[in-house]
């Protein structure tokens, strides 16, 4: 059994056990007068542990355990905290503007986390099927190299084919000008690049031998550029979900702090 599988199995069993225990305790102690306070504190504790994972990543020099272990805890605790959230709400929809906003923040943070988990499990496999490993930050440079080569092949001093030059100007230059077809790559559609390659193939049929070699090389470059775009689209998705997850986490913490003040300030005890 691999370490990942071992962690997954252990984590899943722990999550199931904790969830069953939480639901059982909920059924048993739901009638307690201050039950919502208790589930609220449990939820806050879960949110605290989830949040300090980000702090842990910023402090790699401290001996706080492996980041991989922290990530596993973050994932499984994220699921459990979502259950705690539902228990805290007593499985009902919230009322009032503030509580609705707070609930939406939690839903967005946890929902983006689930999306991120899904992406991190699915997208790397898809990336592995389209070429080797490409560092996201190097993609612009690699794209520039391909663009320069295609430009040289089409418009260079030794390029004497007006047909290829025109085709490059009209069709390939926009294609190489930047990342293209991100959404289509995300949904695994290759229709644009297939269309472009088909046009190149049409061009090749009536070309001279020299032109044919250049067109075949251009087709290869187009495929590489498309592969780069594919990597960029998927790797961007792997990074962009954090733009929702992390910023809204801090918003959630701010709203949670106010929530605590309000519930204690307005509760029966404080009157």
């Amino acid at each position, binding site marked *: 059994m691999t370490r990942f599988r071992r962690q997954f199995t252990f984590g899943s069993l722990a999550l199931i056990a904790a969830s069953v225990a939480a639901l059982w305790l909920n059924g048993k102690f739901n009638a307690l007068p201050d039950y919502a306070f*208790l589930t609220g504190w449990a939820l806050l504790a879960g949110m605290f542990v989830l949040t300090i994972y980000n702090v842990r990543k910023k402090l790699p020099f401290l001996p706080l355990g492996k980041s991989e272990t922290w990530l596993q805890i973050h994932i499984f605790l994220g699921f459990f905290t979502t259950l705690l959230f539902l228990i805290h709400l007593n499985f009902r929809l919230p009322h*009032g503007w503030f509580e609705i906003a707070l609930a939406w923040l939690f839903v967005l943070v946890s929902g983006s986390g689930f999306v991120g988990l899904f992406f991190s499990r699915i997208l790397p496999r898809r990336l592995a099927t389209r070429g080797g490993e490409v560092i996201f*930050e*190097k993609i612009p440079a690699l794209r520039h190299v391909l663009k320069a080569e295609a430009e040289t092949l089409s418009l260079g001093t030794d390029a004497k084919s007006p047909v290829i030059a025109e085709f490059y100007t009209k069709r390939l230059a926009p294609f190489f000008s930047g990342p293209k077809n991100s959404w289509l790559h995300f949904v695994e559609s290759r229709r644009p690049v297939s269309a472009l390659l088909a046009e190149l193939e049409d061009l090749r049929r009536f070309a001279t031998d020299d032109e044919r070699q250049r067109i075949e090389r251009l087709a290869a470059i187009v495929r590489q550029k498309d592969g780069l775009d594919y990597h960029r689209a998927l790797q961007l998705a792997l990074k962009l979900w954090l733009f929702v997850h992390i910023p809204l986490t*801090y918003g959630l913490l701010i709203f949670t702090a106010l929530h605590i003040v309000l519930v*204690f300030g307005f*509760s*029966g005890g404080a*009157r």
Partner: protein
Amino acid sequence: MSEQLPSPDFDAHNYARPNQNWICGHACEGNACRQGPDAKGRCRATAECKPVQKTKPGETKGRWHCTRPGGECESGPLPDGSCCRPIAKCSPVPTLRVWRGRATLAVIAASCAVLLLLLGNPPWRNNFISPGIVSDSHSGATFAARAETNHLNQNCGACHVAGDSGPNPMIHAALHADPGILDLKKLANAKPAEPTAIDESCLKCHAGRNFHQTDAPPISCSFCHAEHQGRMMAATTDASCNFCHGDAAKMAHNSVGDEVTSLKSKQSQSLLTSAPTKSEIHHFADDHPQFRFITEKLRDPDTLKFNHTLHLTGPTIPNLPGGEKLDCMFCHQPDAAGAFMKPVAFEKNCRVCHSLQFDPETPQLMLPHGNVDFVSAYLRSLPKQYLNLAATENLADANGFVEKKLAGLRSQFGTGEDLERRVFFSTATFGPEAQIGTLSGATRSLFPGCAYCHEIKTAASGLPQITKPVMPERWLVKAKFSHAKHLNIACAQCHDAVHSKDTADILLPAKETCAACHSPHGGVANTCAECHTYHQPQFVAK
């Protein structure tokens, strides 16, 4: 150590520095400088070299020398010692980490700004932090007027100390809450339904907690009445009632049953409450006790003699003057609210058939009803009554008419005392038997004697004494009921009057009859509060 070595294809020249906040502006062209931007995103490129000044022996100023890697350039340094080949500065590009950090700061700033804006404006604050719509009872113009009368705050502050204050008092109230913010032990051990400080706010308008039982433990108002649930206060659920009635230990100390039993001999109404509830009750259809008049086989103590079966199905019952057949609704009319039935009255409901006509030949004369003395006086003034009748009908020989009538009565009943005795005590009918409540008679049924319907006793003075009929307006007085809500049900479906020949029959439905509809299976509301009221009626707002 081997893990820390760079991979074989590591290109130190094009090192991307993905963890840094800024990347070289030329990186997208594959020409990132080796130095890279500084921490604040400024390009650090200057020139291809940094010339050094060398002063040979005998020279005073010295000369600048090129230090370019790979060999000196042709032009060499400029006279001021700067490199002649400056590198064009780039515009460093922030990495995704920087954008993410900016997004985080923006969300934090937006959250703080929104909260400060909303909390700083009292009307917005109250709407924003309210966990739900306040009921109409505790908001709006009526509540505002009442709050003014009672010198209360008209907003959240009417109930919550922190309700109409700014952020600082809110925090102060939160920090001084009881149980405290971190007092988890007290939070975990809080007793259910225990009154809290917020109940004091309720008592400013509501005069005390009048519980349905004097020795009931004090219960927090909010345990049953949840606010912020909508424009109508949330209906009290069975869970609130089950706090006591679902708890065997609490019910074991209940004294309600004893109290009702002690009233048994005083009021017939009290006989007809539910059975003493020392047992647990959770739901009406499941474990609510059977009504007490059934379990204890109680009888209606009313002394009036009435036969429902005869009046509803008897072949001798005549049609009403309008030709309609006598039915339940003729005697049992709903009150103005439609909830309960008006009391049955002789003049309105009985006299139409039972006219108290004592002389078969003179239907114009009828005995008064309701007072023994009046009846006795009327009988003793019969000559005068007949004389008045003769005058009214303009009879030529009035005295002869009176004599003839009195002679007829004497021949039928004997003396006046005999007639009076018979009127009060006889259950036999006057006149032809067939005329008593039959369809064959052209007139209404004749008067058979007070004892036909009433219990007649002889007082110590020898005068007749009629036991006053007791017809309670309500039977199950501990429960709410409205006939108006049950108009789609035939009377006989709940009240088995067709088979009741005796007044003592209590024609109320058994619990099962109610539960046929008022149960989860029946689909009609079946909560405790559907029939019962927790508070005494005097628990009203000041």
